[in-house]
């Protein structure tokens, strides 16, 4: 079997039933495309992707729970993406996250056929250079409105997605390839580096006190000198964190 005839396993993600019906109808005339799942919101999409590992996702942007960019941030491995939306203002972001195409509603059969051609070409050129696949941090940045900081963190736990609002966040802790997200007495593991997660946070609210810790400034009860040139931060919940020299400098600027 050559890659030309390889089946494309596609997933349709749109909260409007007519929009999904239209894609289904158009895709009916492309025998190499099989629809493996249809989802009406971001949570369903993440769950279905974990189950079916699709090659291609048709993704609406404005949806309940998670928007299209947030869904993309949580998909591993990354499928090819074709955005389908009535809004043209996300085209640049879509380009930044390396989407295969961007379909503006309403679109016709030919336009969809073009998008599929692009996806097939990308597959043929397989072994996409790693540099072309944006990091989760770049995807998360693309998901945010221009010039604004993140308001929530998304954590995937198998097929489930947890939304942690930043007001509830107690502490971020680096653990190898993961970041432990502590919030409201619970802990989730997010597959990212601490630097990636920290880059999306408002630096006036969250401070990296140490290589391995990011903490909300208002959670810090006090700082204690523990040896010469070495400090610990005592959090309101009693937790003690080491404070590095550069972390102390950042803290002093804020407090």
């Amino acid at each position, binding site marked *: 079997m050559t890659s030309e005839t390889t089946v494309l396993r596609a997933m349709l993600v749109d909260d*409007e039933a007519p929009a999904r019906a239209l894609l289904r109808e158009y895709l009916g005339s492309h025998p190499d495309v099989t629809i493996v799942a249809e989802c009406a919101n971001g949570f369903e999409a993440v769950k279905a992707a974990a189950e079916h590992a699709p090659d291609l996702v048709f993704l609406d942007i404005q949806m309940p729970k998670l928007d299209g960019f947030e869904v993309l941030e949580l998909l591993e491995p990354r499928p090819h993406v074709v955005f389908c939306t*009535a809004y043209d203002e996300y085209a640049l972001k879509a380009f930044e996250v390396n989407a295969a195409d961007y379909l503006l509603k309403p679109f*016709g059969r030919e336009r969809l056929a073009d998008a599929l051609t692009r996806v097939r070409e990308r597959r043929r050129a397989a072994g996409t250079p790693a540099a072309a696949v944006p990091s989760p941090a770049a995807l998360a940045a693309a998901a945010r409105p221009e010039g604004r900081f993140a308001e929530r963190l998304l954590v995937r736990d198998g097929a489930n997605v947890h939304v942690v609002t930043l007001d509830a966040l107690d502490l971020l802790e680096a653990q190898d390839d993961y970041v432990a997200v502590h919030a409201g007495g619970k802990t989730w593991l997010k597959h990212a580096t601490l630097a990636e997660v920290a880059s999306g946070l408002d630096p006036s609210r969250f401070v990296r006190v140490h290589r391995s810790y990011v903490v909300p400034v208002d959670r810090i009860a006090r700082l204690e000198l523990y040896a010469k040139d070495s400090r610990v931060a005592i959090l309101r919940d009693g937790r003690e964190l080491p404070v590095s020299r550069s972390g102390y400098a950042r803290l002093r600027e804020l407090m």
Partner: protein
Amino acid sequence: MHPLFGRRFGLALYALAWIAAGILLGELGRLAVPQPRPFAWLLAVPPAVVLGMSVLSAWWLCRANPLQEGRVGRAVSVQLQAAAAMAAAWAAITGAWGVVVLRGLRHDPAALAAFGREWPLVPLALGLLAWLLSAIVHYLVLGFEATHDAETRLLEAEVAGREAELRALRAQLNPHFLFNSLNSINALVGSDPEGARRMCEGLGDFLRRTLALGARDDVALAEELELVDRYLQIEQVRFGARLAVERVISPQAAACRVPPLLLQPLVENAVKHGVAGCVEGGTLRLVADVRGGALVIAIENPVDPETVTPRGAGVGLENVRRRLDAFGARAARLDAVREDERFTVTLRVPARTGEEQE
């Protein structure tokens, strides 16, 4: 600061005018007390310039004591006192300067004696006159500015009102709503051609009503609600069972006059930022009643608890507020409250059932 100080050219021109006045005064003085021209000018010009600059301070006094009804007497008395003080101060200055020039520089006892005969009556009279003239001119300028400002404010309010109306109209013809509706029609053409036709008809009807209502100054709430119904019918094709609508409208409320296209953007927000953001959708509630002479309209929708802020909703609300202001409803109010998973916008407008006003 005095408006003249902001304009260097104006201030220079003003100073030149006073130098000219000083020269004139000097020439008049020569008629009374003959003496060489340079000394006459030296005697008159510096005090004239000092007087000119000093009477500019009438501006602050005029601003602090405006000629308002009931306060005219007070303003006049303040200005007279200031004029007297000014005249006295200026007489003292001219007297001292006269002594310096006529005794110190020229040493002409005869001229000094002649000068003494004119002093202090002439400088007192001139100082008084100068201050009062200045006060009158400043009051005229301030009065002119006040009317000008009032006119500008009136024009600005009018422009803001029209702008808000235009924006409402444009928001009405929200392109994304049209694009999504066209996409739904596109989908229906394949699966349900009869439904596609119905939706084309509905969309056409909605657009025609929007344009017709937008051209009027006020409409009955019932008419506005008919438009809202058309809109919701179209959205129900897109969202299916996720969008449920509940209406509780009292007959008295339905007859009240409201600005056209006032509810439409609020209902659109309720769908876009509320129901559309919930996985299971929800019920949009429209309630209108007349209570104590006020028409109270509430639009209530569910919101997803994890939504941080309804993106862009603030602009819509601000727009509605401006429309209410432009409608001349001083007593009108708009409140937006989010309680856990419900978002409610409440409008209060004076209940009027009169005919359309042109």
